């Protein structure tokens, strides 16, 4: 069986910043409330850029860092719940803009777990021999689907994109991964799409906004973040002591604090940047991974756990050696 390595990463967030103070001027909330409940201080927000624009910038950086010919990329997988179109996919838009002419391109939807799904699909395809490399991207413009009158959700989300280039290798890289779902709890976190309307049927069209049962999602997230970390370690015959850093999906600082307490780990074992970006769904893990690598928080040879959870419901984790 071939091994798969993460060769390079890249990330991008729009320049425009939305801070808690500004949010307090549009909905009944405060910096204190948002900070203590979520850990978020500010988030980046699209100034007109769509998901493919953010994905393009992140992917461009990953390709540049990998120092490869764009024509040699064999697969492009974009994880997103906020694509520009139903079709063409964000991945196909990237293909055109980055000249990835020989790649098979498609999007996947696994909400906030999307990057782990993309990584699992890409790694499995490479291990199976279908491709020898893949560009994977998590990209979102969630602020398109936020109800700016709902103070419970509009404070949570931000826009951004992160990318990674994976390649078949002799060296060990992605050591272990798993993904899982529970569709029976899908209604806890929802963004409606288009209802059926045709000459024979007319249906109610709900607004395409994020709806979330905060308490139940919090409960799900805290349970699954802990069990997923434990599962991916167990599958790898490793323990927490072997791990240099955990990069969790950045949904809420309180979920990460809960996990640290449950696993009896210091909080600095977790990479945390939610204060700067909010919840960027599928983009949060690759943005954090890129940042951790570029800041030297993660070094070559380090073992890192990536763990995600979100709408679907979906979750997953990966154990990687950089």
């Amino acid at each position, binding site marked *: 069986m071939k091994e798969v390595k993460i060769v390079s990463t890249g990330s991008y967030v729009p320049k425009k910043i939305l801070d808690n103070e500004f949010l307090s001027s549009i909905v009944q909330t405060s910096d204190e409330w948002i900070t*203590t*409940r979520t850990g978020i201080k500010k988030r980046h927000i699209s100034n007109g850029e769509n998901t493919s624009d953010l994905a393009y910038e992140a992917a461009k950086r990953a390709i540049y860092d990998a120092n490869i010919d764009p024509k040699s990329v064999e697969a492009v997988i974009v994880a997103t719940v906020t694509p520009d179109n139903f079709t063409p996919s964000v991945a196909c838009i990237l293909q055109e803009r980055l000249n990835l002419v020989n790649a098979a391109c498609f999007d996947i939807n696994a909400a906030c777990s999307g990057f782990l799904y993309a990584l699992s699909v890409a790694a499995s395809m490479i291990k199976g021999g279908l491709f020898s490399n893949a560009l994977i991207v998590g990209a979102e413009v969630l602020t398109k689907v936020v109800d700016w009158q709902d103070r419970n959700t509009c404070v949570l989300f931000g826009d951004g994109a992160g990318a990674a280039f994976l390649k078949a290798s002799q060296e060990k890289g992605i050591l272990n991964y798993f993904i899982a779902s529970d569709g029976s709890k899908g209604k806890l976190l929802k963004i409606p799409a288009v209802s059926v309307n045709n000459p024979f049927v007319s249906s109610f069209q709900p607004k395409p906004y994020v709806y979330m049962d*905060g*308490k*139940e999602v*919090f*409960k799900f997230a*805290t*349970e699954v973040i802990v069990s997923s970390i434990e599962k991916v370690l167990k599958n790898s015959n490793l323990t927490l002591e072997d791990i240099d850093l955990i990069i969790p999906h950045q949904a*809420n600082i*309180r979920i990460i604090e*809960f996990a640290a*307490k449950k696993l009896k780990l210091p909080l600095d074992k977790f990479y945390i940047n939610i204060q700067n970006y909010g919840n960027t769904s599928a983009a949060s893990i690759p943005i954090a991974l890129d940042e951790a690598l570029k800041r030297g928080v993660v070094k070559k040879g380090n073992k890192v756990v990536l763990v995600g959870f979100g709408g679907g419901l979906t979750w997953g984790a990966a154990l990687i050696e950089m």
Partner: protein
Amino acid sequence: MVFEKLREIISENMGIDKEDIKLDTSFEDLGLDSLDLVELVMNVEEAFGIEIAEGEGFKTVKDVVDYIEGLGR
């Protein structure tokens, strides 16, 4: 005793002095917000081996004690 055990759980998980936790203490008095309450409910479920139905709307320590004792009846 349910109250003693509950006091232990609240104190340990939320870092609150046991002396400050009395039967009639409200969670608001203890400075716990809605997410703390979700966390507390999870810890209580685990410690007592019970399932707490959604939306119980606990306001005070006594509310939780009554709920747990009510299950035994």
